[in-house]
């Protein structure tokens, strides 16, 4: 199949591109749009390193063909906050030791932000469930849970 034209709103900006309809959203973000913050860990929807929000829903971008994302609102780790203005979950991960090697971190942050938008005060069980699609091999998850709990308790204005 030939290249098709797609327009996506990524982190609030309209992006136009030509891609194969079955190109993975992950590759489109990383290679076409140079948003390399979103990582590939397994390529089969198991590890969650490629997690992004598609119209507000948490998805594994390695399993989403770009055709399915046409016209959609996409949010990646780069959209959560920047080094000048960290999102509450980014700051909490930094302070609590939620990021070690950093490979699961972008997906973990997107999943955490998604959880906090749906549930203003998740308890530990809800946090564990909300992050169960994101594998981490470094932390044993404890620092990540603590980070999400800290983000819950931090000021609300920068929770996105």
């Amino acid at each position, binding site marked *: 199949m030939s290249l098709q034209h797609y327009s996506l709103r990524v982190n609030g900006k309209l992006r136009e591109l030509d891609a194969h309809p079955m190109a993975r959203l992950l590759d489109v973000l*990383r290679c076409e749009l140079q*948003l*390399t*913050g*979103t*990582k*590939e*860990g*397994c*390529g*089969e929807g*198991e*590890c969650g*390193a490629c997690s992004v929000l598609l119209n507000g829903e948490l998805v594994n971008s390695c399993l989403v063909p770009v055709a399915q994302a046409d016209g959609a609102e996409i949010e*990646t*780790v*780069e959209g959560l*906050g*920047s*080094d000048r203005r*960290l999102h509450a979950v*980014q*700051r909490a*991960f*930094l*302070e*609590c*030791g939620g*990021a*070690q*090697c*950093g*490979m*699961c*971190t*972008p997906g973990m*942050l997107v999943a955490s932000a998604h959880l906090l938008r749906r549930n203003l005060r998740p308890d530990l069980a809800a*946090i*564990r*469930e909300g*992050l*169960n699609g*994101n*594998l*981490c*091999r*470094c*932390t*044993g*998850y*404890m*620092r*990540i*849970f603590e980070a999400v709990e800290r983000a819950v308790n931090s000021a609300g204005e920068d929770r996105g």
Partner: protein
Amino acid sequence: MARAGARLGQEKIVGKPVLRKEGVAKVCGMAQYIDDLTLPGMLYGATVRSSIARGRILGIEFGEGIPWDEFVIVTATDIPGENEIALINHDWPCLAAEFVNHPEEPILLLAHPDRHLLAKAVAAVRVRYEEWPAVFSIEESERRDAVVWGEDNVFKTFLMEKGDVDAVWSQADRIVEGEYATGAQEHLYIENNGAIAAYSADEGLTVWGSLQCPFYVHKSLVKMTGLPEEKVRIVQVETGGAFGGKEDYPSMIGGHAALLAMKSGMPVKVVYDRAEDMAATTKRHPSRVRHRTALTRDGKLLGAELEIALDGGAYSTLSSTVLSRATIHAGGPYYWPNIRVRSKAFATNYPPHGAFRGFGAPQSLFAIERHMDHIAEALGIAPDELRRRNLLKPGQTTTTGQVIQEDIDLDHLMGRALAESDYHAKRERFARENAGAGMKKKGIGLAAFLHGSGFTGSGERYLNSLAAMDVTAEGKARVLVSSTEFGQGTNTILCQIAAETLGIDYDAVEMGPPDTNVVPNSGPTVASRTSMVVGKLVHSAAVGLKKTLMASGLLREGYSTGEFVTAARTYVAQHGTLRSESRYEAPPGVHWDDQQYRGEAYAAYAWAVYVAEVTVDLATFAVVVDDFVAVQEVGRVLNPVLAIGQIEGGVAQGIGWALYEKVVWDGGRMQNNQMTNYIIPTSQDIPRIRVFFEERPFGHGAYGAKGIGELPMDGPAPAILNAIAHATGKQFDSVPLLPEDMFRTMAVREPEREAVAL
């Protein structure tokens, strides 16, 4: 502003939870890993691998429908230097030339600008073989069903002996025997292996990679390319987890990228996908350990005979040093008046097994800590009491005859672990409740262990590590080491040590680039050596830097960070550079006899007692770890958040090794090389891990630090299996222990068992 002159125990930066140096980049998605980098004109490289376990290559055919003239093709004949991954021996080829010795062994390399076409091309290459017999277990290798390596399939043998073991059996009230086994474990770092290489005749070869040890790759590529040392440059980029899995293998994948780049003249990126990474790269050595122990009736260890066997896979890689660590740790944290350990690493036709956090110690500590529970049961003594009667004390000697000089109190360490876990009350309550009819049984178990910090024996002396510090043109202090960051916190703790020593703010210290053209060789980032050994070198280099600045008259006692920066900037403007180096010197009294395996095996040990609480469901045979207490003594804790993170992460990997992570092999090939089928713990599988440190500063480590990174891998598996034995009354002596493994033992009557095993 931090002021100069802080004394030990009154540190302002060391011991504080300062933020991870590269943390902001990581949480913002700005950290650049190997697959995030692209060079102009870059090609992608891929690997054609052996489809058989062992045999001779008869021919290579290039199938129809692929524009082969567009491809860069590399075989072993294209290697300019030695066809070897340089480690300890000289047996591991970079590309198989005539023979293959394991499935997935690299044979041929392809490069092309189009990734998708590359995958089709790899599939279109046909390799014809003459298949030879292969061996797939320690037992087959031991029996020499086929001789697949050297003359006897043995990579390495050690004999470690203390006292007169042969004399103890006649004095023993009881003799307890046991056999214990552990399986392969995949590192499953979230970032797969990858490298980019670029070459030009003028500039030489540069390899960027996801790796632990830049100078290991450097050594290997100098040998493989035949280029002069100064024409080979290795740069570590942000590395997404390693755990030992990026100690040896980056020389392979970096070598492949280099060969393609040198042949094509174009930059080449080789990045594995998950399936290739899991199938082709190294794993933890499977093991079999046999114990025979002589005891008095009140549980005093009189002596023991141990036999350790490791499955090293097809090439020797690091097996001899893994075996060494397994051998030295085999006696656990106990006093043995007499002990003999015979150990062997065997060749098989699996992909080579390699370094993985713990490096042989988790295997032999699993055995001794399960064995101690067997002994306790045999003698009718409580497991904690049996251990208490035999724990090492200051002044006693280890299995290598090393006198314990450290001020350790293992009795206290164990007491704290038992108290924090409410061990005694639970032990009693669970036993009572388990007698009931319920299908859910509860158990609690413990493990006591030690882990040597740094390279074994004379290893640190041979490494002869060098660290340096300099200052930038802006006046910031800079740490120059080849010790790398891959999540464990190297950047942060080394900058903390430097800042503390210089008496300046943490933010005024930065890390130099992990680039072999820029930094000195401070040794590999392995063996729990970074905090203790490299940290000490950074400390000394910082002392030198400060002295130079003070002597120059630009800096006066009581300076602020701002004054330091100004002085440093002025010094550089006047003299061009300001640099201080520090080379390793062994602590006094450290002697090691490599032949007899006697002496100071490690300058220091970390010590720990872990307690696991489990529920076993007798309907599903699922095991849930309900609570986990980890008490350890790792010297001074340099950064509490990072240190706790190291322990929790190691415990999680240990839980995975014990209960979930089974590599399924067939004909030497991993069958479940997907995250879907090789299960690691998720956020819902890990209990609350409660971490406690006893801090006893070690005089020869940076600010009292000892090793920490590997320790937490050692304890969880035996603690959990001891808890399962308490819950079920059944003894399981191998890991991983999956529900189907328990089912075979517990739910199936004897005559049916063989049928189920099939």
